[in-house]
């Protein structure tokens, strides 16, 4: 068997490569019933339950965020059912897993429509998946409530069926710039972002706002969350001596980036981030001391002034033992928004629910909700800092629960 020519070998390898690509998308499970899903059937017709479809990342790279979202949905579901459900019907949620992939998320929309006759969709988690879901939901003419995806382009597809609860990557960049302007001692900035929809959108937003606020962007780096090592990239950043570093990262990469920044002694006056990996409840413990002093733009904190915020925090902690972040809260609020819209529509009907959403005006534990003509909710952004392993809100001043601490160089930390 040894007399093979290289060309033949290469052909074999190419085939093998194709298999690798095909293999990527074939793992994983399908629908996972969150609370007694028994196959759904036609929702809202006759029987006394209403089945609503949720798409999130139960498995895959974004599973930490998917877990957080599921906790939020579950708490809202318990409350809503205890209070009599929606339109007098008990609610069931069916969770479809997008496996942290945009293609899967689009397929999930098909499944929700064909199998569960969905008239509204909640989710998904990531910006990449959200873009796919929004486009798909538009073809079915059913509304999609986007709880967490921040990339600007999610509401820019021209769809009339997208309703985004959270603030965008533009709002994150603006909040960080406002805070830096208030501090007054930063001039140069480096941006380090993951290379998918979320990261590139956050990057674009920050390049734009940094210019407006007069910060010089001295370095702009992109990476893949699959990379083994970020030290060479961080060395590039170190050479430019930026006052500020702005990260747009998911979970494991955020941890690795900060640990490796410490390892190579990369110092900055401000380590800032577009929320996400730097805001998730597990970040302070996973990154340990390397997480201290990092600033993250975020959407909500249990100290928020809206009624129900603290209660939600306690409920999630009691039920799941986790410390909820804004990802949990956005999912929680999304289900309440769906409830309100369906009840205002008076029927489980996609078009009527869409119209109700478009004119909706309600108070939630996440803050007031009202969607503009593009489907965007004007939600205020806060900035939190990790101090002694806890998230402390430091910006804006009317929401702050603590003072911003200056970031010491790594060599001067204990």
């Amino acid at each position: 068997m040894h007399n093979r020519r290289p060309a033949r070998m290469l052909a074999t390898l190419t085939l093998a490569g194709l298999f690798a690509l095909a293999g990527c998308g074939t793992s994983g499970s399908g629908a996972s019933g969150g609370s007694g899903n028994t196959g759904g059937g036609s929702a809202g017709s006759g029987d006394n339950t209403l089945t609503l479809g949720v798409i999130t990342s139960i498995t895959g790279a974004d599973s930490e965020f998917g877990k957080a979202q599921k906790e939020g949905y579950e708490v809202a579901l318990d409350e809503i059912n205890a209070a009599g459900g929606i339109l007098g019907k008990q609610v069931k949620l069916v969770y479809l897993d997008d496996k942290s992939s945009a293609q899967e998320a689009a397929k999930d929309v098909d499944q929700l429509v064909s199998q569960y006759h969905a008239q509204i969709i909640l989710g998904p988690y990531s910006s990449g998946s959200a873009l796919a879901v929004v486009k798909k939901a538009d073809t079915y003419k059913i509304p999609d409530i986007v709880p967490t995806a921040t990339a600007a382009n999610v509401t820019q597809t021209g769809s009339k069926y997208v309703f985004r609860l959270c603030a965008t990557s533009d709002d994150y960049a603006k909040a960080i710039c406002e805070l830096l302007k208030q501090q007054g001692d930063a001039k140069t900035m480096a941006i380090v972002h993951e290379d998918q929809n979320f990261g590139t959108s956050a990057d674009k937003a920050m390049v734009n706002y940094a210019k407006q606020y007069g910060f010089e962007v001295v370095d702009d780096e992109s990476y893949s969350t699959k990379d083994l090592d970020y030290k060479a990239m961080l060395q590039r950043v170190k050479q430019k001596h930026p006052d500020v570093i702005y990260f747009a990262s998911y979970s494991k990469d955020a941890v690795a980036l900060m640990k490796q920044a410490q390892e190579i002694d990369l110092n900055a006056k401000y380590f800032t981030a577009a929320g996400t990996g730097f805001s998730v409840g597990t970040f302070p413990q996973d990154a340990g001391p390397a997480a201290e002093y990092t600033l993250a733009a975020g959407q909500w904190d249990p100290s928020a002034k809206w009624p129900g915020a603290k209660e939600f925090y306690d409920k999630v902690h009691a039920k799941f033992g986790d410390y909820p972040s804004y990802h949990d809260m956005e999912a929680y609020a999304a289900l309440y928004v769906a409830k309100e819209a369906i009840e205002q529509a008076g029927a489980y009907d996609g078009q009527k629910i869409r119209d109700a959403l478009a004119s909706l005006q309600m108070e939630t534990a996440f803050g007031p909700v009202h969607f503009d003509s593009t489907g965007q909710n004007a939600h205020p952004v806060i900035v939190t800092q990790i101090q002694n392993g806890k998230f402390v809100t430091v910006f804006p001043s009317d929401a702050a629960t603590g003072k911003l601490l200056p970031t010491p160089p790594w060599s001067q930390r204990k």
Partner: protein
Amino acid sequence: MFLQTIVNGLLLGALYAIVGMGLSIVFGTMRIVNFAHGQFVMAGMYITYTLFTAFGLDPYVSALVSFVLCFLLGMAVYRVAIHRIIRGPEMNHILLTAGIGLMLTNLAQMVYNTNQLTINLSYSHRDLVFGGLRINIAYLISFLIAAVVAALLFWFIMKTETGRAIRAISQNAAAAALSGIHVTRVTMLAFGLGIAVAGVAGTLLLPIHYVDPSVGDAFSLLAFIIVVLGGMGSILGSAIGGLLIGVIAQLASYYLGQSYSDVLTYVVFLLVLLFKPSGLLGRSRV
């Protein structure tokens, strides 16, 4: 900084090299197109993760456990599945091993879920400093273990009777059988050995990289590139190929940006194949 980048590249490359060396025996020498190689690396990572979280066993100790378990797993997989199609066309190898890979991926997903798991070692982000050069301790230990494994493997293939038998089979299985070599047993042993080395690679990777069920695909591709780049059937070539890819990736990341490291790696790979189709240390086979 140039020197530091080269050093980092060599340290990273040692990990690539050991991923490649396992496949070098299976694919380079025995000509079994093993598309589940990355999944066996993943298996080593999960074994190490489990031992660490359940018993607090240091990953560099569990390298030995990974080696033994993956060796047995590899031999079993060979005996049960691959042996049946070993004389068939390469397409069959691909289909079968890709299937085994999918099974392993989904098995991992059933047992461990798809979360990205990491272990926290006190020294995984600690550096030794030698006159301005920083060397990460976890990488250094991995480098040394990789070097020992490479040396042992080289010695085993080149100097022992079994190693000679493996080389004989790779040259001509029929003649090897005629001269009294138990072809099935030796092939099974070689396959087990390759998988064992993949398992060790997984162990060494875990302190610096997360493990999830899909992590294997990237390592399979990487391993094939390293084996072809180094030269089919040359274990030394795979070691050099791995180191070279590590250095190129780091140089590209530092001088051009992180997103160029894959681009430059493949450019160099194509250039090598263009000018030396048999790979760096490969014998010409045409």
